[in-house]
């Protein structure tokens, strides 16, 4: 029976084949769809308003619809970045809107009550105070989730509902208005023609991306999100990691809250950052990070946040009646999510890929 030993010609995967497979991965990159969706929105706007894409460089600041979108998206981008890391650990933070309101309240009340409400130094102290409060709130959320083991959605629901009450306590139930150049500068100011809000968002994005990908934080966050038990057995300090991301998202929410307060020159405990947690979660999901935790994409979230902000602009730009706003938004969101759904994509080209890679699981 020696003839059976003749090895059938068995080509190992050749280099071109491997390269093809890598190309394939790039094509399936989660970023493709959100970017396409954003481009589509921009195209729609350009058809409606041909000057939509023009950025006016002539004045002392950049201006044009695109610049406004970038500026308006800044708070959402900030919170989205934090939310991405939280979601990657299988968590979620519903309290970011309330935390933003608290940050605004603390800063404005401090400024209003200080002897020199217009001074830069007052603003700096006020902002530091506000951010310190946010760290404390983040620690609280992290404590509930990582030490007490409460489900994140419930744990952060506590602060989501109680937080606005806290903000009311801080502002004594009033809408506290302030006039401080530094605080409003955070929202509407410009440095080298570029809106400060955009610069801040970019800086936080850069810093986060650097920390996450240049240290091992990103990998450990993903490991904890994908398989918490295996991570624990491998010695990953998941408690510290989970705690860190909740503090980080609270800090991001605080910064966003300061921007929102600066934009209106007021602390409105009831309405500042209202529903922004839902937009942030949406931005994360549109960006291709799964709510089931694990792999995440910061760039995707940024695109997601830009998409959501552009959508709001589009609705006004197209003159769609404001009553149908939400319906329109819902349709756009569903469309993006559908395109991303593995089932739908699979149905589009069933013969080319494994039927149920997820269900098939390991080996």
């Amino acid at each position, binding site marked *: 029976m020696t003839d059976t030993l003749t090895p059938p010609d068995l080509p190992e995967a050749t280099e071109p084949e491997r390269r093809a497979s890598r190309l394939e991965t790039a094509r399936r990159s989660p970023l493709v769809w959100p970017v396409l969706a954003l481009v589509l929105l921009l195209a729609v706007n350009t058809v409606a308003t041909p000057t939509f894409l023009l950025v006016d460089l002539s004045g002392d600041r950049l201006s044009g619809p695109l610049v406004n979108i970038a500026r308006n998206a800044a708070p959402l981008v900030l919170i989205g970045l934090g939310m991405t890391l939280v979601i990657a650990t299988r968590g979620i933070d519903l309290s970011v809107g309330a935390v933003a309101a608290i940050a605004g309240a603390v800063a404005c009340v401090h400024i209003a009550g200080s002897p020199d409400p217009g001074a830069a130094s007052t603003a700096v102290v006020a902002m530091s105070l506000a951010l310190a409060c946010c760290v404390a709130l983040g620690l609280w959320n992290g404590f509930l989730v990582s030490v007490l083991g409460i489900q994140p959605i419930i744990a952060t629901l506590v602060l989501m509902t109680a937080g606005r009450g806290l903000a009311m306590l801080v502002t004594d139930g009033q809408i506290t208005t302030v006039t401080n150049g530094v605080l409003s500068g955070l929202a509407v100011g410009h440095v080298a023609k570029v809106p400060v809000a955009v610069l801040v968002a970019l800086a936080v994005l850069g810093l986060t991306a650097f920390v996450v990908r240049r*240290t091992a934080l990103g990998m450990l966050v993903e490991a904890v999100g994908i398989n918490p038990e295996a991570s624990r057995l491998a*010695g990953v300090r998941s408690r510290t990691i989970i705690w860190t991301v909740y503090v980080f998202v609270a800090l991001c929410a605080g910064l966003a809250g300061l921007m929102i307060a600066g934009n209106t020159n007021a602390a409105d405990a009831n309405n500042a950052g209202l529903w922004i947690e839902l937009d942030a979660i949406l931005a994360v999901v549109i960006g291709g990070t799964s709510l089931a935790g694990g792999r995440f994409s910061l760039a995707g979230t940024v695109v997601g946040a830009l998409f959501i902000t552009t959508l709001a602009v589009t609705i006004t730009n197209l003159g769609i009646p404001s009553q149908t706003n939400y319906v329109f938004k819902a349709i756009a969101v569903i469309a993006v999510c559908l395109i991303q759904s593995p089932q739908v994509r699979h149905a589009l080209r069933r013969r080319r890929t494994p039927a149920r890679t997820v269900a098939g699981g390991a080996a």
Partner: protein
Amino acid sequence: MSQARTEPLPETARRPGDAAPVVELRGLSIAFGGVPALHDVALRLYPGEVHALMGENGAGKSTLIKALTGVYAPDAGTVVVDGQERSFASPADSQAAGISTVYQEVNLCANLTVAENMLLGREPRFLGGIGVRAMRRRARQTLERLGLDVDPASVLGQHPIAVQQLVAIARAVDVDARVLILDEPTSSLDADEVARLFEVVRTLRDQGTAIVFVSHFLDQVFEIADRLTVLRNGRLVGERLVSETSQLELVRLMLGRELETLDRLDRQEAPPVDRDRTPVVKVLGLGRKGALEATDLEVHEGEVVGLAGLLGSGRTELARLLFGADAADTGEVEVHGRRARVRTPRQAIDRRLAFASEDRRAEGVIGDLTVADNMLLALQASRGWLRPIPPAQRTTLVARYLEALDVRPADPHALMRNLSGGNQQKVLLARWLLTEPELLLLDEPTRGIDVGAKAQIQQLVAELAGRGMAVVFISAELEEVLRLSDRVVVMRERRKIAEREGGDLTVGEVLETIAAEATHTHLTETTDGEAPR
């Protein structure tokens, strides 16, 4: 034989007197992202036969099963069931067509009860609701058939992986399937459970069921199978009658070459273990209610201590308590003669302990991360997130272990979940070797690993011990424990009953010890019957 890929399979391999096959695969091909996993493979299943599907790790056995049962859509080829061409869109489809499958990685819901898991999707109805009683009764009957004594109302996740595996099998045999597919069902079972499973399999076969059986245990294949199909590198090598094939020949078919060393490991060169020195790890009275009675253990530098015992004897529990995977109620741990607090895996790792769990899927694999990240996880975790392993060092470390353990594909960027079961096991082993532990706790390290690689891994363990590492080795395969161990700790009913020098100890002697202890305990005391873990 290479021509057999295109021509009809040789007549000799057909069961005499048999009619048409129940299932026939022809020209099956499937590729993942351009890399072929199966190429032009054929398989024929006849009613009333046990058909072994053989091949090395990564040969494509599990992929073939998934392509047949509708988990994957094949790129080319036909599936014929009862003479009709079929294409299953999902596992549920194939099940409806009478194909019942236990996939390699147990795919049950850990937070449901045993009974719910067994009858999920086909619950007996009672007054419009699910009849819980009827469900449990039916589950218990099926479990008893497999000789499994667990409470159907208990939560599945609390049972060891072997029990979960048996529950998955029970679920599959509970339906009257015409085809039963078992992908490495015996990988963590003891001899007893294997024997019971085979009884069930034989009964089903005699009733006319066609059974596909995948295993890396050649003895089991030769005991139970009637015919076999061999795959290598995703290609069909041949189809044989088991009665006309020798073990040696089968190994040659699988590997495409001779297997060099399957004989006794040569541990002669290793320096003798010095038991007068302070042991690397010493535990006194380590125990946890319901898991392990207070147990003492010493492991010395360069020593391999085997834990022998049957399913539920406490061998896994001892390793878990020692590593802090579960917190102990009682007992002390000394590392190098100094009291050490080992309450969490992290503390254990800081004391240079390592523990490779038997439950690869739930407690080892991080499916969506790359092979490289999976390998480096424990090392990176112990450095902390602020000190990433420098890229150059990452590359060399990963490359070294990919080669040393012969992981296929040797691609650091491949996603862990796309690796075959055996190759995942190797990556997890590497994860712990990378931390250069002083005490390595190995729970079923050769689970799902093919014949060739198994010998390599045993050799590796012997070498590590030779270089001074202390090893605790757990395996359901007693032969393997005895081959490797300097000292064997025999366990039963969640406690240590004996400790023997390795060397000339035989499987028979160990089993006798366990059996003798059984009569002894029955005469003198009543043991409490708490569920394991």
